């Protein structure tokens, strides 16, 4: 609900503004601009969620028994086996990094996306009650996060290319695929476009979906009493989207890794 004096535009803008932090010297007109700004809400929410869920997972794993698995161990074994199966089906290399990375992506993106399901005003109003005036709750609606993940994946992908094929093998592939050695410049151009498109599409897909989803939640929240019949169906529908987006990010990462470790 729009509170008091805020107009609809101000309400929406307020919800989509990050809690920023920068040094006093970097401030222009009392606001943070430029590269050396931190989105504290994104960093903290994603960090706390990650620490809680992966801490919990590590605790479960440390107590894991080969006997009859109980409760959470059973559940996480199911999830992790599912992810591992996806990796096994797609990626045929030897790297021990891929499965943990896929697990991290799937679970972390899922819990961050799931913050979408917390009623839009709940955390920002709570935060403003303790003096924090901006709070963007869903970390995946911050392109900084999605790009950080996709660029990390991109970096690992480049590393895998070198590690598996060697510098000469990688260069050979870049210059000769898909049109052969005679069209080397065209091949290089294609390869650059192809590889740069990967992290961009990966991050913008997640960001776009979650941003749009959050926007719809905010718009529904503006409808007064009519939000009641609308918020629930959208939230239910959104459960599908948050899971799907986590899965897509994970799956594409696995596909990129498998492409990086297999010769054309």
């Amino acid at each position: 609900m729009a509170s008091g004096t805020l107009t609809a535009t101000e309400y929406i803008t307020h919800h989509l503004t990050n809690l920023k932090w920068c040094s006093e010297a970097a401030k222009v007109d009392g606001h943070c601009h430029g590269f050396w700004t931190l989105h504290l809400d994104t960093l903290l929410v994603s960090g706390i969620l990650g620490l809680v869920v992966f801490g919990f997972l590590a605790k479960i794993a440390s107590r894991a028994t080969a006997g009859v698995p109980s409760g959470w161990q059973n559940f996480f074994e199911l999830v992790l086996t599912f992810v591992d199966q996806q990796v096994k089906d797609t990626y045929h290399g030897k790297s021990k990094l891929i499965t943990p990375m896929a697990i991290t992506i799937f679970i972390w993106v899922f819990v961050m996306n799931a913050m979408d399901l917390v009623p839009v005003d709940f955390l920002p109003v709570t935060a403003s009650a303790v003096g924090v005036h901006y709070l963007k709750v869903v970390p995946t609606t911050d392109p900084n996060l999605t790009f950080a993940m996709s660029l990390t994946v991109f970096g690992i992908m480049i590393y895998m290319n070198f590690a598996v094929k060697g510098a000469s093998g990688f260069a050979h592939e870049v210059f000769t695929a898909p049109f052969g050695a005679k069209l080397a410049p065209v091949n290089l151009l294609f390869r650059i476009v192809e590889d740069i498109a990967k992290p961009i599409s990966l991050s913008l897909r997640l960001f776009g979906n979650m941003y749009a989803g959050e926007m719809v939640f905010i718009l529904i929240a503006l409808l007064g009493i009519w939000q009641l019949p609308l918020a629930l169906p959208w939230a239910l529908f959104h459960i599908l989207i948050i899971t799907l987006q986590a899965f897509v990010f994970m799956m594409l990462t696995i596909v990129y890794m498998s492409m990086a470790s297999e010769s054309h």
Partner: protein
Amino acid sequence: MSINATLIGQAIWFAVFIWITMKYVWPPLQKAMADRQQQIADGLAAAERGKHDLELAEKRSVEAMREAREKASEMVAAGDKRGSEIVEEAKAAARVEADKIVAAAKAEIEQEVERARAALRERVAELAVSGAERILKREVDAKAHAEMLASLKQEL
């Protein structure tokens, strides 16, 4: 929505969580699952072995039962044979005993007859005398005729 230093922070978070998963989450869970798989495989193998053993034991027990039955019928046959032997022996012994008893009885009867014959001899003399007395209607001197009566006794 501007790209800024948050990017670096998020990349660090991402790396930290990958590291946690890689070191503390996936390997122990994977190990637990692999161990369980091994246990289940062992269990199934043991069950298979048990089934095989059971089959063998069943075969052995059938064999043992057959042997026992054969032995039992052998023993029954031997027992029967022995039994009829004993009966035969007993019959033979009884026959010998019966012969003996019969012989003894016969001997006794002979003696008894002999004794009766002697007694009869005694009585015949008296009867003859008393008969003679009645015939003669007079007292016969027993002493006077004793010699004649004794010779008569000898003739009987």
